[in-house]
């Protein structure tokens, strides 16, 4: 950290100002401390202390079974928990070498995209709020609420969804899902148009966003940026197109990229991605067929309750899965998906029993 006078300002006797922002500050969403060095309103240097929200996810996971980790993955990013749930399930399924039924994969895509919408709506809304734009924030929150209501009907929770299981999802979509989605979609589309009209060509918003927080494509890659932050610089890396998982190769969607790598482009990328998510969900609903939503293997997924209560085999399978968990062969595996803010990766080392070492590569350590 430097605190020296700039030569050209010598006659002003100005010097850098150091401010400790946080760990609890009204303008920050989450507990984090930033030690800022300021030159007027410009941030010259910053030392970020991120440990206040450290929960020891990896340490807790050491003594959990693979399915018990899923609630922890909700909390890696509470506005797009479903992407994290799906990422975890896919990683363990990769290690086991199993593939859930088609309908399950479509459902996972649908919930992932709904989660992405809620994440982007939060980012856009909160970003606008920081600049004093309270109305777009309310519109974004209203749109997010529409999405969350549908998510709640599917998973039983708005934020802490814990919806996936190794080998499937907890439950099929509710019967009236189609109607609920159409209603939510129209609301979101209507509100996005409003947000778009209020912000995109708003002079004040533009001046505060364009040219601010600029990063070059080269630097962004070197720092390991992924997701909308990377795409705003013009690099089109998106896990969904580069390494399609689930059925992302069966649906058509565009990956919006920016040009300047500034806040304004990041906003535009996020806004467009919401529209693309809607497109993806519509195609999934068209393509998906009725069918099972979990694999038919009692060593991985819990047997139906009927079998547990009435057959000895079901009872034993249930007991073993609850007590011992899924048995993943010894070895290491890295699984990754496109989360709300970029690549969410899990590096899991299994010793062959139920316990393991896990390291998670969240987008936010790299690209916030």
């Amino acid at each position, binding site marked *: 950290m430097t605190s020296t006078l700039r030569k050209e300002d010598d006659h002003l006797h100005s010097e850098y100002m150091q401010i400790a922002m946080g760990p609890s500050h009204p303008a920050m969403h989450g507990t984090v401390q930033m030690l800022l060095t300021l030159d007027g309103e410009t941030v010259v240097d910053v030392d970020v202390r991120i*440990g206040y929200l450290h929960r020891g996810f990896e340490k807790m996971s050491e003594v959990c079974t693979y399915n018990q980790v899923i609630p922890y993955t909700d909390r890696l990013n509470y506005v797009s928990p479903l992407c994290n749930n799906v990422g975890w399930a896919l990683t363990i399924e*990769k290690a086991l070498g199993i593939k859930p039924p088609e309908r399950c994969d479509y459902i996972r895509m649908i919930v992932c995209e709904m989660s992405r919408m809620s994440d982007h709506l939060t980012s856009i809304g909160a970003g606008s709020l920081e600049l004093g734009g309270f109305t777009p924030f309310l519109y974004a929150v209203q749109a997010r609420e529409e999405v969350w209501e549908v998510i709640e009907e599917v998973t039983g929770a708005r934020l802490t969804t814990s919806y996936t299981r190794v080998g499937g999802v907890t439950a099929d979509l509710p019967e009236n899902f189609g109607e609920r989605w159409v209603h939510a979609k129209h609301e979101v589309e209507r509100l996005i148009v409003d947000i778009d009209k209020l912000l995109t060509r708003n002079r004040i918003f533009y001046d505060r966003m364009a040219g601010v927080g600029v990063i070059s494509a080269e630097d962004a890659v070197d720092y390991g940026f992924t997701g909308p932050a990377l795409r705003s610089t013009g690099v089109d890396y998106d896990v969904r197109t580069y390494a399609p998982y689930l059925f992302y190769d069966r649906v058509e969607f565009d990956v919006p990229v920016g040009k300047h790598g500034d806040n304004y482009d990041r906003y535009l990328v996020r806004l467009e991605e919401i529209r693309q998510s809607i497109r993806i969900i519509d195609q999934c609903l068209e393509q998906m067929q009725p069918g099972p939503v979990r694999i038919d293997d009692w060593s991985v997924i819990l047997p139906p309750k009927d079998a547990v209560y009435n057959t000895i085999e079901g009872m034993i399978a249930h007991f073993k899965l609850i007590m011992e968990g899924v048995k993943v062969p010894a070895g290491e595996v*890295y699984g990754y998906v496109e989360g709300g803010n970029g690549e969410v990766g899990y590096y899991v080392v299994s010793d062959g029993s139920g316990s393991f070492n896990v390291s998670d*590569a969240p987008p936010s350590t790299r690209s916030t």
Partner: protein
Amino acid sequence: MSHKVVEAILDRFPDAVVSTHALHGDDTVVLRREYLLEVCRFLKDDPEMDFKMPIDVCGVDYLGRTPRFEVVYHLFSVTKRQRVRLKVQLDESDLEVPSVISVWKGVDWFEREAWDMYGVRFAGHPDLRRILMYEEFEGHPLRKDYPQRGYQPLMPMPTLPTEV
């Protein structure tokens, strides 16, 4: 496709490689520590490799095995759409690897995290401080011999008086 990455490393640095595997399709190269920086530079700068993006650096504690620790690097090439995992095995008595921060700027916090969680020293890292735990914290919490509930509160826990 990315088998060619493993082959290129084997080809160019035959002495550097301890072993390779491709479990679950993830190409992995276990390297000798002395060659780490050299291999990383090659992977980043060679136009056929082009691993410009560091995805993750982390430690792993294989308690009971010798060597006990591993440092694992996940790399990604946007242009070639390929991935590779590098590993360096470390003994408990000599827990140090060269920092690759001169190759990728993005590994800064990952290396700090591995230092914080496992006590791996990254030689040449300009600012190797704890990142998640606080400075007063003793030990490295993700080591397998660190207790699950090894709380180290900065403030003493409030206790009720036992006698009135």
